[in-house]
């Protein structure tokens, strides 16, 4: 899990850097080549890659399985959307309070969990409870649309208004692509810092970490809050992309489960896991949709079923995820790395 002995030890090898550059370069050119449908698929893929990275931070660090991450997506989405629709606050500004609200929610959960030593399944249940509670709550807030939904005015879609997040799908695609890249850089940067080392220490052995002067509570809280804020940002982007929000859809547990798919399939605790996972699942999902359409089957739930089976298979047979497996095969590293 550690680097190769050089300063900037979580730095990427030359090979990895080249591969990344190639990848992002290709993805940046994608909108010029692919059609609308494929673009929308890629957009979702990068959403899950970004959110997966955020979730990975909490899991890999606080070591706690959050099954209620949709809470932060929803809070970010609704906060920014409400500020825009009701008060005319552009999302570029609104993202600050949106991320703050999510961070506060994360802090509350973190406070309860770490202060009262709630771990494992209880922590997971705690996160679910918070998300579900919020879902039902928002279903009854008329000012936010309740169950009828909250709608953003759909302006001229060909304008590229970055401040108000009004624009074409291409714009949203680039935003999510950039966010994914930034998340990668952020996590990589953090892991090479004091905070990152402290996170690793806590994950390895909390008691020993505390004896070395690490404030466990504060260090875990930081992870939780960063994770929540990042997730909220993703929610904000999607709110302005889809222009409608429904509590059951946004806060629902199925969304929380979706969020954990990519990082687990790709590789829990690894840097590239979420992106790999998001791509694999995206390809799987779309391939499946096409196959089903061709076969004339139009039942709901098949896609979810296949995802679940895939998740099951990964956890059963390749619990480290796809990235560690691929990395050794493709000659990137000798072992897993973060």
């Amino acid at each position, binding site marked *: *899990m*550690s680097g*190769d*002995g050089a*300063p900037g*030890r979580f730095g990427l090898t030359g090979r990895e850097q080249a591969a990344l550059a190639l990848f992002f370069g290709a993805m940046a050119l994608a909108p010029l080549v692919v059609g609308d449908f494929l673009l929308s698929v890629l957009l979702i893929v990068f959403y899950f890659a970004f959110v997966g990275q955020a979730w990975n931070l909490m899991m890999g660090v606080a070591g706690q399985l959050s099954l209620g991450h949709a809470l932060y997506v929803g809070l970010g989405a609704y906060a920014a959307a409400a500020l825009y629709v009701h008060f005319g606050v552009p999302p570029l500004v609104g993202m600050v309070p949106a991320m703050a609200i999510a961070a506060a929610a994360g802090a509350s959960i973190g406070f309860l969990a770490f202060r009262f030593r709630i771990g494992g399944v209880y922590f997971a249940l705690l996160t679910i409870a918070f998300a579900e509670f919020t879902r039902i709550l928002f279903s009854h807030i008329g000012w936010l649309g309740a169950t009828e939904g909250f709608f953003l005015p759909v302006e001229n879609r060909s304008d590229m208004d970055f401040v108000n997040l009004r624009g074409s799908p291409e714009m949203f695609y680039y935003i999510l692509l950039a966010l994914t890249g930034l998340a990668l850089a952020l996590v990589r940067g953090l892991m*090479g*810092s*004091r905070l990152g*080392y*402290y996170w*690793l*220490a806590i994950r*390895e*052995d909390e*008691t*020993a*970490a*505390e*004896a*070395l*002067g*690490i*404030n*466990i509570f504060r260090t875990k809280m930081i992870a939780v809050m960063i994770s929540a804020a990042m997730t909220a940002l993703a929610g904000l982007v999607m709110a302005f992309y889809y222009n409608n929000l429904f509590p059951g859809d946004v806060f629902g547990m199925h969304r929380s489960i979706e969020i954990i798919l990519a990082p687990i399939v790709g590789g829990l605790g690894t840097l590239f896991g979420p992106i790999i996972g998001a791509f694999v699942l995206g390809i799987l999902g779309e391939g499946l949709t096409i196959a089903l359409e061709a076969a004339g089957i139009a039942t709901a739930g098949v896609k979810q079923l296949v995802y679940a089976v895939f998740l099951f298979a990964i956890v059963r047979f390749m619990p480290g995820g796809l990235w560690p497996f691929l990395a050794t095969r493709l000659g990137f590293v000798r072992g897993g790395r973060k």
Partner: protein
Amino acid sequence: MSAAPLLKVEGLRKTFKGLVAVDAVSFEVDEGSITAMIGPNGAGKTTTFNMIAGAMAPDSGEIALAGQSLAGLRADQVCHAGIGRTFQIVRPFPKLSVLDNVLIGGLRDGSSVATALRAARETLDLLGLGKSEDQPAGTLTLPERKRLEVARALACKPRLLLLDEVMAGLRPNETDELVATFRALNKDRGVTILLIEHVMRAVMALSDVVYVLNYGKMIAHGTPGEVVADPAVLECYLGEDTEI
């Protein structure tokens, strides 16, 4: 060796569900000294350590480091106050490299990662672990892990180093090596050491002062020579009616 005690423990008491583990224990550790705490298993030595290190709260009593009370402090705060400790059952960060283990300790005082890295390499060399620096800590042998534990505790730049049975399981030559290392640390770097030990070879070779615990009570103290000849001490190890 100065006269002012670096660590002052007074009337320390801890009870576990009716069993008195530590009973009104008081002692001092002088700055720059090497002090040992010995006694049969279950005498309350590690419990005392845990209370000093902030891992456990005493029922009553006072603990002060250089005059500053450590009452109510968490383990990480105690570390910042100047105490480094090892664990009786070693707790390395198994998946992290040996170097990373020590580096993390070195970050305590706010050093940059680069500074802590350099310091970590030095500390590893001091404890003879230099060539293993990239190995995952979990793959080390037990004696190596013990040395890593010491190195890591040292990395936090403590004024007082608490060593909990670091010699256990070592062969005599390994013990002698470690004794020499500690002597050097104490003399050259001025690290005050308080150690729990069963290995009398090390206790005799290292300590300036020895405290003896039995059933949670302090039953004797003095120089190693005095303590070893003390009938009360012999009795607690060998039983009553023992002829020397």
